[in-house]
């Protein structure tokens, strides 16, 4: 049994549903800052890495607040921004963390901004090599230009809503900016026990 299992258990339900969707690239965003997007991206990536035998790449594409990069202590390391600016250098920027999880920090954000073409090219290359890509994105309302190229190219975009905290009108506004083409899903974060539907058999099998 893996020692991280109890910690990633809250994300097992989400990971199993992403797995069931069969998507290869998933982006997490929110309407506002502080909704728990980076935590969910990290937990889901860990949970997916354990759920699947195939590798998972966690990408910190949060141009506004790259907290995963800060957690990893890779603030000055090359990352996704460097990828977008110089696609040939991508292999040197990726960090393999073990147990099927790899991490790509944000890199030098002054080098490039995400564009549809650059992001599409990046995903085509990365998803070709890895089974799943999890992308941590900035909030839509604060960083729309950094989100839309990813939303248009990722297989699935998920909007994190914090239970009893996120104003629904702002969520609607954020969803409106994403547009209908991306067909996002909602992730209800910090939900009460009654709101959570975790596949009990899966949890039981893993523990």
């Amino acid at each position: 049994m893996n020692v991280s299992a109890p910690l990633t258990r809250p994300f097992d339900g989400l990971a199993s549903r992403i797995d069931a969707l069969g998507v290869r690239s998933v982006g997490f965003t929110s309407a506002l800052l502080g909704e728990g997007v980076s935590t969910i991206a990290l937990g889901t990536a860990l949970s997916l890495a354990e759920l699947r035998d195939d590798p998972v790449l966690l990408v910190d594409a949060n141009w506004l607040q790259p907290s995963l990069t800060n957690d990893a202590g890779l603030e000055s390391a090359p990352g996704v921004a460097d990828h977008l600016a110089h696609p040939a250098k991508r292999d040197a920027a990726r960090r393999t963390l073990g147990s099927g999880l790899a991490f790509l920090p944000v890199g030098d954000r002054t080098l490039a901004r995400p564009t549809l073409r650059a992001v599409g090219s990046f995903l085509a290359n990365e998803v070709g090599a890895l089974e799943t890509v999890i992308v941590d994105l900035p909030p839509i309302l604060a960083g729309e230009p950094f989100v839309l190229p990813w939303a248009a190219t990722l297989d699935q975009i998920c909007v994190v809503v914090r239970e009893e905290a996120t104003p629904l009108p702002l969520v609607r506004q954020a969803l409106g900016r994403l547009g209908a083409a991306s067909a996002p899903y909602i992730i209800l974060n910090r939900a009460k026990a009654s709101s959570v539907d975790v596949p009990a058999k899966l949890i039981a099998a893993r523990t």
Partner: protein
Amino acid sequence: MWRYLTTAARYRWLLVSILGLVWGAGLAAAYVEYTTTFESEATIWVLRASPELTVTSPDDPSAPILQTAASQQADLLDQLLQTQSFVRDVVQQTSLRPALQAAPDDARFLARVAKAFHVQTHGTNLLTVAYVSGDPRLAAEMVNAALAVRADRVAQASVTYSAAANTLYQLQFKVAQRQALDAQSALDEFDQGHPGPLSDVEQAQRGQLRLSLDFAQVRLGNIKGRIDQSTLAPAVLAVSGMEFQVVDQPRVESSPRGGTKTAATTAAVAFVAGAALAALLVLLGTILPTHATGPADVARLAPVKLLAAVPRVPRVEGPAGAPADLRASLALIAFRGGRGRGDVTE
């Protein structure tokens, strides 16, 4: 009901803040009101003057009195307090005079002063006049001034009324005097015209003339008595003071008094307002949810669907067994190889 309780629990800190603010402010205002209110009160014993001492005729049916002496005097004071001239005269006799002169709106100032007076009856012959103020000395001063101005007004009215009555009686007296003189002249003429023994008819005529003279003299005496009464009665009443006796003089109170009712009202209003505000908040928070309180609320974002719910994890067991933040623990496992996980490698 459960929905409302859930909403109340969700907004508990906001509710506590609102209740704390409204109730706290109300209680503070009530306390300040109570501690800074001083009421000075005069207790007055009133009697209705004897009919013999009144200027009006006791036989006059046009002035029926259906009130007790106390309510009559209380009404009189209340009516006087409704007039600006009376209140102005009262204020002019007190230390509020400079404030009145400096007031931009005299009428409002005088109305506020009049409102601070309270006249109340206690039975048929007892009444109290009170004034509520933040200054205990001023309260006593105002009651004394009100009683003094009232006494002046009543005395002045009495003099005016008695003077008018006196004038009327004087006119009646002149008419009655002339009638008496005429009757006397008629009787004298008859006596001069009939020196000898009188026949039965003449005796009857003389009796009628004599009777007319007697009636005229009685009426003359009656009017003369009324003139004397109208002159003396007000003076006798004023000297005796029996009609309006101040039993307990207004005192300068050393401790707060008279603000209990206002303070209680203020506190009650604050209590009701706070409770109503809290209830309104809970009601609106329940029927107009602005946040997602569960998967059911996410359905309101249709056509977007809920993929999953991530449960709330307050604290997790950290690497050293101590409680730790979930995010920090996940980062530790992912990036630092916590609990034996692999180190970051390139």
